[in-house]
C-alpha cells in the first residue's frame, strides 16, 4: 500500500507544485538570511523561546487560573470549551445574548479546527473571513493549504474567476485589482457586523494582554468597527511575562514571512477605553481545549509550543512537493504531521500515516522558532501507530521481520555479510528484497563489501589490545 500523501502528491498539477515549491523555498531563504543578518546567535533565541514555551506548558495548571483571574480583573469575560462543540456553543451563546447575527472574522486556526463557520451558518449567523486568503478560501468552499499563506495552492486566474462568480466585478486577474475589490467589499462588511472574532497569538499571564498579529490589518478593522470582540484561544497560547513577548515577537514574523515585525501587532487587555469612540465595549476570551490536554498528557507535548509560523512547512522537502491538502487536516506540514494525528483523538488511525511522511531530515527542528524536536515526535508517533496496529502506520513500509531475525542473531548476520558478496556477481533481478529491487531499477548498487569493516576493526592495534586484556580477565 502506497502512502496516501504520495498518492495525493501525484495528483497535484505541475504548475501548482512548482509554485508551492518556489514560494516556500524563497520565504525560507529570506527567513534564514534575516535571522542570521540581524542576530549574533539566532539559535540561542530559538532555544530560549522553546524553553519559555515548554515551561509554560508544564505550568498550565497554575498559569491558566492565573490568566483567567487577570483577564476578569481587566474586564474580560472568560469562557472555557473542552470540545469543538463547546467552543461553537460558547460563540453562539454570546451572539444570542447580544441579539447579534453578523460576525467578521480574522484568521484563526482554532475556528478551522472546530468548523465554526458551518456551525454558525446552521444557526442563522453569517460569519465572514476578512483575511484576503481566507476570504478566497471561504467563497470557494475550499480549505487553507498553508498556516500562514492559506491560498498558496491557488493562482490569480482561479481567484479572478471566483471573484467574477461572486459578483465582485468582471474577470480581472491583476493582484492589485483583486485586492482593491476585496478592500471595498469587506469594509462594508466590517461596518455592518455586530461582532469581531479573532484568535490569539499569545496571552501574557502577567498582564492578560492578548497579542494579535496580522499584515493586512483585518483584525484591527474587526476591532475598530464592531462593538463586541470574541477571541478563540487554544489553552497553550500563554506566555508567562510581557517581556517574553519581546523574544517571541522578534522570532515570529522573521520565521513566518521574513519580516522584522508583522505590520500590525496588537496588544489587547480588554474592552475599549471609555474615551475611544471605536471598538468593542465587550470582550470575551474562549479558552479551547479540543484535544490539547490529551496531547499534554503524552510524550509529544512539546508540539504544543508551536506558535504557528509555518517555517517548518516552508523548509520541508515533503511539504514542498505535496502541498498542504495532502495532510488531510487543518495543520499541514511537519507540525501537522505531529499535531493533527494527536488532536484527532480516537480518529488517530485515520491519520497514522502522516508521521511517516518525512525523511527525518531534521530541517523542521532547525528552523523552528521554539525549537520543537519534530523528528523525535514523528518517531514517537510512528511507534504509537505500530503499537496500536493502525493499518496506515504501515503504509508503504517494507516487511522488516526477516531483517529483525538477521540483525539479532550474530552468526546469521556474519554469514549474511559474507554471502552478500554473491550480489556482486549475480544479476540484480535476483535481489531477495523487493523494495531493494525497485530501488535498483533506477540506481546502481555500490559494490558489496560486507564484512570488511568488521575485519578492519578487529585488526586495529587498540582493539586487539583490548580484546587480549578482556581474554586475560576472563
Amino acid at each position, binding site marked *: 500500500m502506497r502512502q496516501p500523501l504520495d498518492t495525493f502528491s501525484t495528483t497535484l498539477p505541475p504548475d501548482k507544485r512548482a509554485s508551492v515549491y518556489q514560494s516556500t523555498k524563497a520565504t525560507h531563504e529570506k527567513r534564514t538570511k534575516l535571522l542570521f543578518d540581524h542576530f549574533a546567535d539566532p539559535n540561542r533565541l530559538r532555544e530560549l523561546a522553546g524553553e519559555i514555551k515548554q515551561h509554560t506548558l508544564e505550568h498550565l495548571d497554575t498559569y491558566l487560573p492565573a490568566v483567567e483571574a487577570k483577564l476578569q480583573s481587566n*474586564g474580560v469575560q472568560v469562557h*472555557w470549551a473542552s470540545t469543538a462543540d463547546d467552543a461553537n456553543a460558547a460563540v453562539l451563546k454570546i451572539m444570542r445574548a447580544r441579539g447579534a447575527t453578523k460576525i467578521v472574522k480574522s484568521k484563526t486556526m482554532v475556528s478551522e479546527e472546530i468548523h465554526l463557520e458551518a456551525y454558525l451558518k446552521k444557526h442563522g449567523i453569517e460569519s465572514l473571513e476578512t483575511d484576503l486568503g481566507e476570504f478566497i478560501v471561504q467563497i470557494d468552499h475550499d480549505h487553507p493549504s498553508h498556516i500562514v499563506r492559506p491560498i498558496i495552492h491557488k493562482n490569480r486566474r482561479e481567484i479572478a474567476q471566483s471573484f467574477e462568480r461572486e459578483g465582485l466585478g468582471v474577470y480581472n486577474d491583476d493582484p492589485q485589482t483583486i485586492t482593491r475589490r476585496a478592500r471595498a467589499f469587506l469594509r462594508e462588511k466590517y461596518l455592518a457586523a455586530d461582532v469581531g472574532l479573532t484568535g490569539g497569538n499569545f496571552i501574557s499571564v502577567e498582564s492578560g494582554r492578548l497579542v494579535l498579529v496580522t499584515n493586512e490589518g483585518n483584525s484591527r*478593522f474587526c476591532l475598530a468597527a464592531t462593538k463586541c470582540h470574541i477571541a478563540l484561544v487554544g489553552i497553550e497560547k500563554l506566555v508567562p511575562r510581557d517581556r517574553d513577548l519581546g523574544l517571541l515577537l522578534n522570532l515570529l514574523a522573521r520565521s513566518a514571512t521574513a519580516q522584522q515585525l508583522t505590520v500590525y501587532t496588537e496588544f489587547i487587555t480588554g474592552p475599549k477605553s471609555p474615551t475611544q469612540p471605536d471598538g468593542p465595549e465587550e470582550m470575551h476570551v474562549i479558552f479551547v481545549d479540543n484535544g490539547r490536554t490529551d496531547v499534554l498528557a503524552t510524550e509529544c507535548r512539546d508540539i504544543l509550543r508551536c506558535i504557528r509560523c509555518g517555517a517548518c512547512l516552508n523548509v520541508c522537502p515533503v511539504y514542498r512537493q505535496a502541498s498542504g491538502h495532502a495532510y488531510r487536516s487543518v495543520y499541514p506540514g511537519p507540525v501537522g504531521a505531529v499535531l493533527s494525528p494527536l488532536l484527532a483523538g480516537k480518529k488517530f488511525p485515520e491519520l497514522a500515516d502522516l508521521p511517516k511522511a518525512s525523511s527525518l531530515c531534521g530541517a523542521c527542528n532547525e528552523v523552528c522558532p521554539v525549537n520543537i524536536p519534530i523528528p523525535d515526535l514523528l518517531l514517537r508517533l510512528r511507534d504509537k501507530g505500530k503499537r496500536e496496529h493502525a493499518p496506515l502506520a504501515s503504509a508503504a513500509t517494507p516487511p522488516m521481520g526477516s531483517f529483525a531475525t538477521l540483525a539479532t542473531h550474530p552468526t546469521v548476520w556474519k554469514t549474511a555479510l559474507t554471502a552478500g558478496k554473491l550480489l556482486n556477481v549475480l544479476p540484480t533481478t535476483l535481489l531477495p528484497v523487493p523494495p531493494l529491487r525497485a530501488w535498483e531499477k533506477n540506481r546502481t548498487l555500490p559494490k558489496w563489501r560486507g564484512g570488511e569493516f568488521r575485519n578492519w576493526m578487529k585488526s586495529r592495534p587498540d582493539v586487539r589490545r583490548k580484546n587480549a586484556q578482556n581474554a586475560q580477565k576472563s
Partner: protein
Amino acid sequence: MRLFAAIPKMSSSRDQILSRVRDALAPLPSRTPLPEWDASLVRLRNSTTPADLWAPFAERLRSVNGTPLASPLALISFLTENNLLRGYCDPALHASLASHFPPTITLSTELDRSRIDDYQFGLTAAFGAIAETGTIILSDNTTSSRLGALAPWVHIAALRRDQIFPDIPSAIAALPADPNIIWVTGPSKTADVEGILIEGVHGPGLQAALLL
C-alpha cells in the same frame, strides 16, 4: 465595578480542562524552569543607540515603505503633492496644527462612519514609535479614533522625538496601562495572491509619521 470578578466562574468545561491539565502534568518527574534572558540577545548586530532616535526611526520607516515627515511643513507639502484634500484630524492635533493648513485642505474632527471612504487621510496622535523596526505605536487613550487611523488610504501618526523607543524590548517594558495598543509597521499589506506584495489591503496603503 465587577464585584465578583475574582471568583472564577464555575463551568463544567472549566473544571474538566483544569483537572485534565493537572492529571497530564502530575506524572512529570521535573518541570522546565522559566529561563531568564537578557534583552541584549535580541539586539540587532551593529546597532547603536543615538540620543536622537528620529533619524534611525525615519530610516527604518522608509525601509518598510512608510513615509517620515520631519515637520508640519513637510506634512503640508506631502498632502498637497499627493492631492490629499479631505481628511480626518484628531481634535487635539487640530487645535495645534490647523494654522499650518492651507484653506484648500478640509479637516474634520469627527469621523462619520457612514462616509468612511470620503476621508482621504487620517491624522492622529501616536503613543510612540520604535526606531529599530520603523514602528508607530497607537493606543486607545492617545489615538482619537481607531477607524480614523485605519480606514483612510493615508494615515499620518504624529509623535514627539522623546516618544521614540530604541527597540522592541524597551517598547514592551513601556507598554502603557491602556486597553488597546497597536504597533503599526508600514502600510497594510498582503502577499496572498501568488506571493506578490500588494499594499493597502484593509488599512492604509500609505503610512506616514509626523515629527511634532
